[in-house]
Structures are given as structure tokens and as C-alpha cells.
């Protein structure tokens, strides 16, 4: 089995490497010091299991795990943590694999043997229970086999075609793997639905204008490349959009 080790602290990675060297069934295919590198390495080496530290600067463990789900070859995840009462309770409750530092040989072997893939919803529940950030701060787009992380606060809107969801953001647009519904559920404060297949970032809305044929349309701040037709607010969403705009 191929294992990827992710931890921001070198001695912690070394400890895992030392233990795994003694095990016959596992091969360490890479080590990453942060979430971004972890995603790149995971796409490249297609590990079966990722050992993931929860507390890391930048992308933390939970968010990294969520993005790992977007990979074609989704790895199983085992979290590592030094001390986290809440996280540990949450992991226990949802049968998420974890090991405590200092890492015990036997415990690690057991966790690896039982490692399983984690659904995004499970991860979100765990994060909520553990008092951690539940919302991702990036969404993930797969571009030509590699993953691209788009910061949430740079996204103007999500538009759904028949099959894909497109994120329009500061630097262009990309197809993301999340469904519009799951995005709406995950970021209820940030985005507002203007019609069946569009979510708009509330803080990117300049105003609401009337079109010549009497419909309402969203005007975005400094974004010219979103087609006006896609920004028409459907009649049943007008009141909600106005309310949200007023609140912000």
C-alpha cells in the first residue's frame, strides 16, 4: 500500500516514516509539509492512504481531506493529532481513523489497516463537532489532471450547466466537482441563489437593476466576463436576494 505523509513538522514526519519503514505492507511514496503540496503529491503518486496532520498552517487537515476527495484516485485518510479532545471525540463518533502523537507503532498499524475513504459530509460533521472551521476556504478544480485551488473569497459566482458547475473567479473560470446544492449548503452566508442554476457571492453584488423587459438582474462588481443572461434573478428568488443584499 502506498502511503503519503503530511505534517508541517519535520520530526513528526520522520517519526511516521521510521515506523512505516519497519512495516512490510506499506511504502511511503511521498512527504508533504503543507496541504497544497499534499494535494499535488497525491495527484502524482496516487497513494492509497494519506496520513494527515490536523493542525497545519494554510490548508488545515480537514480541508485538505475534503480536497483529496476530488481526486480521481481518492485515497483513504488517517488523521494525526497531538491533543484535541474535541477532534478525538468527533473522530470516534463518526469512525474516522486517527492516531495520537506520540505515535504508537501498534496504533498506527491498526489505523492504517482500517483506513477508509471519508465523505465530504462526514468531514464537515467532524469539523463542526470538533469546533473547527467547517467551511472550506478554497474550492478545487481539476485542470488537466492536476488540482487547482480557488480561494472562496475570489469567486463571483457558481453557474451550473447540465452536467458541470462552473466557478467564475478573479482569474477566469474553472469547472469544479461540487454540486450547486452542496455549495449552497456549505456556504449559506457567502452565496445567494438567484435562479435554479446560479449562486452569487453576496459581497460581489454591486446592485440589482431592471431590464427593459421588466426583469431583475444582478450587476456584479468588476466582472465583465459573466454573461448578463445568466444574472437574471428568477421571480421567486427576487425577495430573498434583495433581503440578503440589504443585510450585507
Amino acid at each position, binding site marked *: 500500500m502506498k502511503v503519503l505523509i503530511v505534517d*508541517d*513538522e*519535520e*520530526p*513528526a514526519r*520522520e*517519526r511516521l516514516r*521510521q515506523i512505516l519503514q519497519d512495516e512490510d505492507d506499506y511504502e511511503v511514496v511521498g512527504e508533504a509539509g*503543507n496541504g497544497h503540496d499534499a494535494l499535488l503529491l497525491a495527484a502524482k503518486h496516487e497513494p492509497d492512504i494519506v496520513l494527515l496532520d490536523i*493542525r497545519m*498552517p*494554510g490548508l488545515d487537515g480537514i480541508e485538505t481531506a475534503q480536497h483529496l476527495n476530488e481526486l480521481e484516485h481518492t485515497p483513504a485518510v488517517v488523521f494525526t493529532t*497531538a*491533543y*484535541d479532545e474535541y477532534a478525538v471525540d468527533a473522530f470516534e463518533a463518526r469512525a474516522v481513523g486517527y492516531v*495520537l*502523537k*506520540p*505515535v504508537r507503532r501498534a496504533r498506527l498499524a491498526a489505523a492504517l489497516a482500517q483506513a477508509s475513504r471519508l465523505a465530504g459530509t462526514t468531514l464537515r460533521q467532524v469539523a463542526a463537532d470538533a*469546533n*473547527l*472551521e467547517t467551511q472550506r476556504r478554497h474550492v478545487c478544480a481539476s485542470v488537466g489532471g492536476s488540482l487547482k485551488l480557488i480561494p472562496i473569497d475570489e469567486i463571483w459566482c457558481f453557474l451550473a450547466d447540465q452536467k458541470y458547475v462552473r466557478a467564475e473567479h478573479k482569474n477566469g473560470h474553472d469547472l469544479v466537482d461540487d454540486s450547486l446544492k452542496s455549495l449552497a449548503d456549505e456556504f449559506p452566508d457567502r452565496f445567494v441563489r438567484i435562479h435554479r442554476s446560479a449562486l452569487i457571492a453576496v459581497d460581489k453584488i454591486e446592485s440589482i437593476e431592471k431590464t427593459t423587459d421588466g426583469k431583475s438582474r444582478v450587476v456584479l462588481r468588476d466582472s465583465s466576463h459573466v454573461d448578463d443572461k445568466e444574472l437574471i434573478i428568477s421571480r421567486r428568488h427576487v425577495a430573498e436576494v434583495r433581503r440578503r443584499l440589504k443585510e450585507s
Partner: protein
Amino acid sequence: MTATSESTHEAPQAFLPDFCAARTLFVIVLVAELVAIVLTLAAHEAGAQFLVELSKTSFFVLWLALLGSAVMCLLRNTLERAGKTRAFVISFFVLELLSLVLAEVSWQLVRFFGSSTIIDDTHSTFLLRTFAISSIVIALAMRYLYVSSEWRRSIVLEAQSRISALQALIRPHFLFNSMNTIASLTRSNPPQAEEAVEDLSDLLRATMSSPKDRSSLKQEFEIAAIYQRIEKLRLGERLDVRWDIGELPMRARIPNLTIQPLLENAIYHGIELLPDGGQVLVSGKHDGKYLEIYMTNPVAQGKKRGKTGNNMALANIRQRFQLAYGNRGSVDVDNSDNHYKVTLRFPMEEAAT
């Protein structure tokens, strides 16, 4: 944003006794009667006349005491809100006013009923005497209440700070991470592992055995440096601490375990969350009378460590500063966009050698 006034420990505690309570009333009546006896004893010889004089004085003093209690009982909530010093000043003047009003009313009543033998004094001397006596007695009583409430408060504070000193020992997070580091070094770099175990032991010894509540700056900085060495093993290049403290008098006294917890906070909430790490700057100055120590660390933008900010260490240091220095020491936090700065200010005291 300066959070100077943020009070972390001030439990709402009454500094004035509850004047509405029967027990307090009993004590007040007792004290008033004693005052009346003292006044009568001072002015008259013992004899048949004495009891008459005593009853007249008692009548007046008791009226004043009971009315005063009633007023204090009514004002209680307002006074508690006003803050300690103001409450005492307000009560003093209110009671003073009350005694003058009462004196005037008695004078008028006595004159109205026409028996001049009750008060054998001229109008102005009577008011003046009442004013002087009541000022002294009320001032003494206020002083007594103030001192005893300060005393009670310091007992409470001390108890609290003892408890939180226990709680503020090294974070488990740090302990387990260090153990993990040591486990790893044991194989890859045994001499370094040895050193780490020694450092960790020194640090634990310092935090566990602290019956004395003051240490010198020198010792404080040494403990913090040991802590820094252990964290450095884990964080490597990401952790940089600059000690700009050459100017400070190393023999100066400081509540112990102050610097290390602050450094721990700076690392835990700051450096650890920055992908490229950063520098903690420790600096200070002194003017012979006061010392100031500053600890500044960069913080990651828009990222909090969990949702529950852990400010136990800071609250603990505040409490111990309050206990050690009262108003002469302070712990201020300046939490700007990407920097976090703690300023300690306390009077200079040299440690005995």
C-alpha cells in the same frame, strides 16, 4: 485596538455590605449606640443626668443610622455600578447631607415644641457639631469598609490565581508534540534527543515547582529560552525569536512564569499557523522606576485557532499582575490586523541576592 479595560477576572463582588440585611442593621444599631455612649461620656459626668443625655443622643444617632442604612439600601444597585472609589465618595456625601438635614429637622422640631432644654446649644453650633462628628464617624466607617473589602478581594484574587496557575501549566498540545519529536529523534539523532529530554525536564521542573511567586528577569528569560529550544526542534526554520532585551536589568523581579507562557501563546496562535513561520520579537525598556516588556508576533490573517480563543495564560498573568502590583502594573494587548502585541508594565523591584 487596545483591550486595556477588558477585565478577565473581576467577579461581580459587593464591596459595600448589604444595608438591607437584618444582620448588617443589627451591627449598625450596635455601633450607633456605642457612638452615642462615647459622645455622652465625653460631654457629661455620670449620674442621673447621664441617662437622660444618653437617651437624647441615642435618639438622634439611631435615627441617623437607620435613615442612613435605608438610603444606602435604596442606593445599593447604583453604587455598585458606579465603581468602588466613586461609590465611597458618593456615599460619604449622601450620608453627610442626611445628617445635616436630620440635624436641621431636629432643631426645628425642638423649637416648634418649645422645650429648649432638649438641645442646649445655639442653632449654628448644633449644626456645626453634628457636621463635625458625623464627618469623622462616617469617614472612619467608610475607611473601614473600604479596607475590609480590599482585604476580602485580595483573598479572592489570591485563591483564583492559585487555581489558574495550576491550570496554566504547559499546554498538553505542546507536551505531546514534544514527546513525539523526542520519539523520532531517539532513532535519528540520539544526542539531540538527549538534549531535548533534559530541556523538557528543566522546563517541567520550572513550571511544577513554583512555590515562590516572584523570580528574576534572568530566570524568566532562561526558562523561555529552554522552551524556545524545544519548539525549535519541531518548527525548525519557521520559528525565529529575537531577544532584544540587553537593556533590561536582569535582576529585576517579575511574577514567575510570565515570559514563557507569552512566548507559548505567540507560537501557538501566531507562528505555528503561518506557512512560512515568522519572528517573535521580545523587547523592553525601563526608566528606573518602571519596566516594560513587549512581545510581538505576526498572525495569519483570517485564521483563528479553533473557535475558542485560548486566553487562559493571558488571563492568568493579568490576575497575578493585579495581585502583585494592583494599579501599578498592567498587561495590555494590541491586536492589529496581522500583529499581536502584549505589553507588560510593572514597577521595578530588585531581587535580593
